[in-house]
């Protein structure tokens, strides 16, 4: 089994497994975030649960961090190996003749998403860690706000048009990444994704609707404040 | 030296089994001390190398391409015959033997052909075990089709790529032995001479085609499996690199060359389109199962079509001449290759050709599409189907059967064969002649063997469709590995053969001198110039029909071309690098000698048989006329000039088959 994950095929399987996990996480993240538009109170409740439940904080959160980090590092490792596999570049290469832009540029859409995640961590995750693990404040409240603080913090972040712009752009890259990544992950896992129209359609729907939904949330809060 | 075919005594059906029971064997421990060189790794060489290695011999295999998988066996499309009688249509070993001897126009060696038919069934078993994906029916069993010149369905096939799949099977068997270290593979190496020590073949001189280095390789026996010499015509369906060099070099070192004039001109090839043409493309003979061959019945229609004023689809049924169906009602479009080819040439020479060059006939699938369409409509219970519906249903069946061939045709000719008839014309395809071998497949040089298309033995004057693959694999998998043991049993104490001997030195020097000559010659004409010139003489005077005057001229002209070649050939580049021009020069030099022997052989053979058609010897209906006094193999001994080669005759005796006039009417 150890040998398996050292092989090129095994590494792609590992990439796909982490991708599945991240895609599931994304769906879950979206489901909670959309509550901020539909029902701010419920959003606060769920956020507090997610932010304080020990199982999620101490078990799932590290797994998530590992998943994200693994996906990125493995992505870079594979990219370096792939670049080395062609030591002399073509003078003329017509990649568009046989493959999509998305499939050829996963590393760039990936890097864009990585940049976004850094921003996102600075915005939300680091303050959360600071509040909970350094200050030891697990109450979910702050002064001057009635009830939980999460909704307030969320809407506050979407005041700046520059940040909203960055978010929108990042989600466009996410969509591009997913448009290839969704079916590619299935293919790496051995599914004949290229032949399965339903799977492809689900993939397209997921890849466009989820990022679009996140964009909607960002714009909604931006224009409603 | 008198020719001894070494055919064992006894009833024909027991010869091979009895023989195997009595020949010498080499014990497994001793096989480890014996080296065998196999030159050429197509179906025959590849299968031989694999089996010899598996038996325990140390094999060194040589191929001029970058992999054994590239050998031209890969281009065989149609299928492989075997007397399995899976279809229960009355096939048997005897019937396959009979068809092959008859198809070869009674010019092959009976015992060899019987053995071929006998082991044919093993080949299929073997290949299936190897994972060759033959076509199957819905019950999961192997499917068969029928092929030209026979009345049973005994041809196994893998789409239109049977040769490819069989070669890849042999290649995979080789790979297994390469991985085990039992075969040492020399890709991109070309054999340039054989080395004889004390009269026995003990090694070869080869050129590394990447570095240009000349190498000596020794062995206890040498097997030459380098295919046919069809490229002597310049244009043929052979691969660009296919050559006679190995066979010709061993001929010059004492191996007799048999029946060079027996050349197969295949009837269904894509016609030539211009002078730049570098090779011809074959369309599988299986197309004749469903296609109907015709030319316009009236000269003015043929002329109008050539000038583009009429289209073939404009001609009504009675304006067409289905000449094969007319001349040969029993076999119709399925007559053997030589008959079909000559009939096409006859029509085109008479002015009925249908493309710009006047050298093409139609192969029409409209009837087949119609027939299959009606059949399918019935199967699918469609009542009163429209014309379009019938066409679509029929087209689907034709597409399933021949789709890849139709696509290939369309890519080359830029016409849609589903809508308009294909154009075809005969082209040089296979050479039945080759190095003379005895029953053991050994040449007249001890320890030197020749297998596959490179030898002469099984197909006589004409080869039946789907028999080349059968012969290549039979020789390589099932015959040579046994018979070679009989010879090598005497070599178990010989020990390693040294390459530091004067014989190797001399052979190497000869090879190097020739290369140096080419590189330093200040000529003005390219190698291709001479090759094309030779090809034209061969096609015009030693082609589908030959006559005394033409052959005499050919001998003279080829000699002149050869003299000019040695004076004026220009080879660019250097000896110690990859140099395709130099490779070609060496090959064309040998073709220029073979061509002359070819013409001489055709001149001496005063009869018509199979692929050899002498205009002076034909029946009143224009069919080939065999002569009783020419019932022999012409085995030529090299004595200097090709045209002065010495003729040795191996009389052909038919004890198990009655020699009759071949009739396909």
């Amino acid at each position: 089994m150890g040998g398996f994950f050292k092989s090129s095929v095994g590494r792609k399987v590992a990439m796909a497994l982490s991708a599945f996990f991240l895609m599931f996480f994304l769906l879950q993240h979206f489901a909670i975030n959309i509550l901020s538009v539909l029902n701010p109170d419920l959003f606060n409740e769920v956020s507090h649960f997610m932010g304080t439940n020990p199982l999620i904080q101490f078990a799932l959160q590290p797994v998530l961090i590992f998943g994200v980090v693994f996906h990125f590092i493995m992505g870079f490792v594979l990219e370096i190996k792939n670049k080395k596999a062609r030591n002399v570049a073509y003078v003329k290469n017509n990649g568009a003749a046989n493959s999509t832009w998305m499939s050829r540029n996963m590393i760039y859409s990936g890097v864009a998403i990585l940049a976004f995640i850094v921003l996102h961590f600075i915005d939300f995750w680091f303050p959360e860690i600071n509040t909970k693990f350094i200050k030891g404040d697990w109450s979910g409240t702050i002064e001057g706000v009635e009830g939980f603080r999460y909704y307030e913090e969320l809407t506050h972040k979407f005041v700046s048009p520059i940040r909203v712009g960055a978010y929108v752009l990042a989600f466009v890259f996410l969509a591009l990444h997913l448009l290839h990544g969704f079916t590619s992950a299935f293919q790496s896992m051995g599914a004949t994704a290229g032949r399965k129209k339903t799977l492809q359609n689900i993939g397209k729907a997921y890849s466009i609707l989820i990022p679009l939904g996140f964009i909607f949330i960002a714009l909604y809060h931006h224009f409603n404040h | 030296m008198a020719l001894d075919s070494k055919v064992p005594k006894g009833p024909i059906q027991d010869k091979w089994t009895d023989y195997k029971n009595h020949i010498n064997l080499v014990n497994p421990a001793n096989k480890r001390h014996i080296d065998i060189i196999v030159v050429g790794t197509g179906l025959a060489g590849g299968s031989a190398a694999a089996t010899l290695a598996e038996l325990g011999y140390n094999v060194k295999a040589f191929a001029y391409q970058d992999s054994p998988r590239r050998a031209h066996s890969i281009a065989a499309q149609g299928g492989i015959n075997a007397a399995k009688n899976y279809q229960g249509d009355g096939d048997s070993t005897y019937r396959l033997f009979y068809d092959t001897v008859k198809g070869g126009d009674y010019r092959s060696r009976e015992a060899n052909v019987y053995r071929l038919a006998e082991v044919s069934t093993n080949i299929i078993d073997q290949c299936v075990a190897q994972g060759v994906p033959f076509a199957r029916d819905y019950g999961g069993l192997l499917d068969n089709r029928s092929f030209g010149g026979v009345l049973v369905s005994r041809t196994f096939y893998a789409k239109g790529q049977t040769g490819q799949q069989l070669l890849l099977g042999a290649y995979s068997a080789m790979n297994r032995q390469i991985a085990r270290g039992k075969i040492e593979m020399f890709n991109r190496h070309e054999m340039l001479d054989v080395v004889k020590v004390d009269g026995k073949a003990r090694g070869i001189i080869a050129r590394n085609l990447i570095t240009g280095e000349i190498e000596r390789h020794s062995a206890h026996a040498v097997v030459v499996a380098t295919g046919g010499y069809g490229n002597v015509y310049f244009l043929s369906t052979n691969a660009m690199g296919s050559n006679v060099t190995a066979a010709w070099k061993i001929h010059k070192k004492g191996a007799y060359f048999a029946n060079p004039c027996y050349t197969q001109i295949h009837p269904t090839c894509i016609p030539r389109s211009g002078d730049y043409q570098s090779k011809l493309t074959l369309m599988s003979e299986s197309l004749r199962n469903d296609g109907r061959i015709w030319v316009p019945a009236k000269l003015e229609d043929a002329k109008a079509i050539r000038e583009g004023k009429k289209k073939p689809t404009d001609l009504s049924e009675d304006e067409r001449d289905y000449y094969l169906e007319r001349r040969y009602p029993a076999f119709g479009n399925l007559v053997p290759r030589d008959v079909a080819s000559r009939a096409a040439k006859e029509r085109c020479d008479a002015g009925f050709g249908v493309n710009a060059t006047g050298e093409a006939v139609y192969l029409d699938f409209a009837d087949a599409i119609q027939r299959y369409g009606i059949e399918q409509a019935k199967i699918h219970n469609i009542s009163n189907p429209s014309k379009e519906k019938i066409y679509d249903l029929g087209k689907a069946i034709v597409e399933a059967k021949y789709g890849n061939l139709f696509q290939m045709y369309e890519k080359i000719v830029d016409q849609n064969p589903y809508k308009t008839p294909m154009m075809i014309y005969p082209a040089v395809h296979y050479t039945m002649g080759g190095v003379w071998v005895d029953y053991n497949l050994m040449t007249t040089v001890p320890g030197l063997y020749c297998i596959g298309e490179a030898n002469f033995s099984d197909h006589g004057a004409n080869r039946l469709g789907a028999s080349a693959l059968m012969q290549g694999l039979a020789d390589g998998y099932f015959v040579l590995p046994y018979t070679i043991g009989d010879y090598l049993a005497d070599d178990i104490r010989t020990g390693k053969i040294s390459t530091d001997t004067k014989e190797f030195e001399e052979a190497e020097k000869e090879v190097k001198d020739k290369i140096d000559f080419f590189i330093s010659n200040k000529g003005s004409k390219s190698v291709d110039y001479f090759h094309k010139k030779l090809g034209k003489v061969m096609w015009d005077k030693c082609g589908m029909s030959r006559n005394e005057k033409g052959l005499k001229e050919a001998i003279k002209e080829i000699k002149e071309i050869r003299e000019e070649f040695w004076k004026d050939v220009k080879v660019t580049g250097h000896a110690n690098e990859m140099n395709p021009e130099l490779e070609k020069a060496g090959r064309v030099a040998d073709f220029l000698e073979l061509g002359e022997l070819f013409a001489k052989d055709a001149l001496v053979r005063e009869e018509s048989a199979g692929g050899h058609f002498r205009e002076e010897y034909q029946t009143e209906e224009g069919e080939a006329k065999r002569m009783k006094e020419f019932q022999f193999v012409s085995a030529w001994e090299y004595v200097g000039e090709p045209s002065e080669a010495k003729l040795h005759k191996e009389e052909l005796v038919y004890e198990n088959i009655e020699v009759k006039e071949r009739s396909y009417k």
Partner: protein
Amino acid sequence: MNLTLKIWRQKDSSAKGQMVDYKVTDISEHMSFLEMMDVLNEQLVGSGDDPVAFDHDCREGICGMCSMYINGEAHGPDRGVTTCQLHMRMFKDGDTITIEPFRAAAFPVIKDLVVDRTSFERIQQAGGYISVNTSGNTQDANAIPISKHDADEAMDAATCIGCGACVATCKNSSAMLFVGAKVSQYALLPQGQVEAADRVQNMVAQMDLEGFGNCTNTGACEIECPKGISLDNIARLNRELMKAAVK
């Protein structure tokens, strides 16, 4: 038609190569691409220059020897063809055509447009066979019925000609389509089951050792493959390796 050719010239494997411009005139649209190259070479021999070395043999699209990267695509702009089957009618008078060798670290250039594909050989030697003795008697060919569907699918995988267009095309120089096709052919047949696990593991290990890249499922290989080998074979390779790993 008249054309400008930009061709990669490289004396030998250690030399530094470069693109060189050539002109050819009076090219017929019915010529094959390699016949056009013949015209160029005849011209070069005439002027005493070194002709362009390129691999070719059968010139009917089955041996897998020809291997040119033409105008940025393996085997040129047409689909379902090898370089030798590409015809000049795909080009227009006055065109400039860029011709490069197949590029991959595992396919080093030998000379000009000729590359060394023995990495493919070593992958095949690692397990691209069924371990059955060719000299012995085996059971009757019809002893094991094989479903037509499986046999046909195995045949489709087996039509690979080993030209390397998949590697040349892949942005990662991955050999997965080539290896997938061979693994699939045997995986689909009962004869191949016995040593399926060892086969796929050994072939993939050799593929990695040769320095081919990873498959990122762009699908370019399938489109450029002259024989239309399906991407499904890569999926099957993935499944086979997973199966072997948990075995």
